[in-house]
C-alpha cells in the first residue's frame, strides 16, 4: 500500500467554529486508513501553485474520514475556506511523522491557538490517559473543548485575558499536572515554555513544528528546520518528512 497518496475527496461537512476558523470533514477511506495523529495533509487550493499544509485534527477509520480545523491566515487558507459541503477537495495525505502514542503513559497535551486541533487526534488515541491544556487569546477563540472532553481526557483551558478558564499561560496550567510524556503544538514562545517544563520533569517531549512547504513529502528540501543529532552535530532536517512532530531534544531552536 502507498504510505500516502494524492486523491480527490468529497467534503462531507464544512463549518465555521469561530469567525475565521473552519472545520472540514473529508471522506477519504484509503488515506484515513493510513493516518496517525499528528500527521498532516497537503491540500490543493484552486488557483494556487503550492498546496497548504493542514494537520489532521481527527481520524475516523470506521467512517473513513479525516477532520481538519484551520484558520484563515492569507490567500491560501481563504481560498480553502470557500469550499462547500459536497465539493471535491484534493488531498495529499497522510504526511510526515505523527505523535508516538503510548496509552499507558500519562500524556500532557499542550496546545496554543490554532495549535490545538492537531492534538485532538492524539487525545483520541490516548483513550483518556491524557491531560489537555488548551490556551487561547480569549473566550471567543476557544475551540474544540467539548471534543477533547469526549475523548475522556482531562481538559483545562487557559486564556490570555482571563475571559475564560485559567487566566494565564498554558505552561503554568500544565505545571500543576502529573505526566510522563508531553506533546505540544503552538506558537514559538509556548513551545519554548513547554520544552523547559518537560525538561524540568524529565518527561519525554514532542513538539509539532511548522515551516513553509512546497512538496510536503521530503523531495524539495524546502521546509528546513535546524536539528541536532545524537552527537550534537547541527544539520537541517525537514518538517514534512522528519516531522512535523519532533522529539524536543532534536530541535535546535523553536
Amino acid at each position, binding site marked *: 500500500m*502507498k*504510505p*500516502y*497518496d*494524492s486523491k480527490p475527496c468529497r467534503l462531507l461537512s464544512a463549518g465555521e467554529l469561530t469567525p475565521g476558523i473552519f472545520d472540514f470533514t473529508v471522506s477519504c477511506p484509503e488515506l484515513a486508513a493510513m493516518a496517525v495523529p499528528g500527521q498532516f495533509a497537503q491540500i*490543493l487550493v484552486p488557483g*494556487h*501553485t*503550492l*498546496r497548504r499544509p493542514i494537520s489532521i485534527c481527527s481520524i475516523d477509520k470506521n467512517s473513513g474520514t479525516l477532520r481538519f480545523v484551520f484558520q484563515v491566515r492569507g490567500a*491560501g487558507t481563504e481560498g480553502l475556506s470557500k469550499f462547500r459541503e459536497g465539493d471535491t477537495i*484534493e488531498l*495529499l495525505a497522510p504526511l510526515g511523522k505523527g505523535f508516538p502514542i503510548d496509552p499507558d503513559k500519562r500524556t500532557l497535551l499542550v496546545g496554543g491557538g490554532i495549535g490545538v486541533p492537531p492534538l485532538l487526534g492524539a487525545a483520541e488515541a490516548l483513550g483518556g490517559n491524557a491531560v489537555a491544556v488548551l490556551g487561547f487569546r480569549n473566550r471567543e477563540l476557544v475551540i474544540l473543548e467539548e471534543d477533547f472532553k469526549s475523548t475522556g481526557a482531562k481538559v483545562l483551558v487557559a486564556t490570555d485575558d482571563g475571559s475564560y478558564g485559567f487566566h494565564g499561560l498554558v505552561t503554568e496550567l500544565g505545571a500543576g499536572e502529573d505526566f510522563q510524556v508531553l506533546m505540544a503544538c503552538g506558537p514559538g514562545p509556548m513551545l519554548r515554555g513547554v520544552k523547559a517544563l518537560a525538561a524540568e520533569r524529565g518527561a519525554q517531549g514532542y513538539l509539532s513544528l511548522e*515551516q*513553509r*512547504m*512546497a*512538496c*510536503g*513529502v*521530503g*523531495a*524539495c*528540501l*524546502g*521546509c*528546513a*528546520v*535546524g536539528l541536532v543529532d545524537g552527537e550534537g552535530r547541527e*544539520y*537541517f532536517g525537514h518538517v514534512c*518528512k522528519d516531522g512535523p512532530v519532533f522529539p524536543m531534544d532534536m530541535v535546535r531552536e523553536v
Partner: protein
Amino acid sequence: MLNVNIAGVEFKNPIIAASGTFGFGREYAEMYPLSELGGISCKGTTLKERPGNPPPRVTETPGGMLNAVGLQNPGVEHFIKEDLPWLSRQGTRIIANVAGSAVSDYCKTAELLNGTPVDMVELNISCPNVKEGGVQFGVTAKGVEGITRAVRDCCKKPLMVKLSPNVTDITEMAIAAESGGADALSLINTLTGMRIDINSRRPIIRNNTGGLSGPAVLPVAIRMVWQVSGKVKLPIVGLGGISTWQDAVEMLLAGASAVQVGTAIFTDPYAPIKIRDGLQEFMEKNGVKSVSELTGGVKPW
C-alpha cells in the same frame, strides 16, 4: 512513439522530473513507479556535502513560487553509494545535476560519476541561490564556454548544460555551451525574484532572494527555447512552468526534444504522468507519429 533520443541517450518518453523538485526519486516512487517517467534529474549535487540555506526556503508567488534551498545535498559520494544503486533499478533514465563553486569541483564531481550508472550529467551553472552555486559561470559567454570545456574534458557521460534565464541574451550562452562541447542544453533554471513580508518587513525567503519557477515563467521559457533552438544544433530539454500537456506540446513546438517538469509536481504529484498521457493522446488524435515531429514545429509569423 513517445521515445526520444537526446545526445545518444534513449528516453522512453520525453517527460523528465526537474532537478531539485523530485529529490532522488524516493518520495514520489511511493506513489508511482519511476519507470513511468522518461527520466529524472536528481537534486543538485556537489563534491562535498552542503547544509543548504536556513529557512524559510520557499514561498508562493502569483502563478509560481520562489525557492532558495541552497543546494542542500549529501555530496556526490553519498549520492553514488546511497541513492544511485536504488535509482538505477527503477527503470528510468538518471540525470545527475552537478553544481559547485569552482571549476575543479565540477570536474572532480563529474569524474566521480564516470564509472556509475548515471545516464547523463546536467551541468548546473545557473543556481541563483548560493553565493558560489555556479551562477557566476552561467552569465557570461566566456564563463559558460570555459566551464563546459573543462567538464567536457573530464566527463565521460553525455553532458547537458543547464542555462540561466537571468541573462540579456540567452542565445549567446547557448552558443558558448555548444562551443565548449556540450551534448545538449536544458533551459530554463529559475529567474531571480523576491517577496517581502509587509508586516515584519523581512524578505520572506531567508536568503533574501530566491528562484522563481512555476506557470508564471512559462512564456519566458518558451521564448528562450525558441530563440536558442534557432541558434544551436544541440538538442534542447525545455523546462520552466510546464504544468499541463498543452504546455509540454508548446515547449516541444518551440524547439525542445524533451521537457522537464518541476514545480507542477508540488501542485499535483501526478502532473508528469498526466502530461505524458495528454501528450500521447494529442499525438494519436493528430496523427503525430513521433515526438521529434513536434520538436521545433512552430511556424513563426
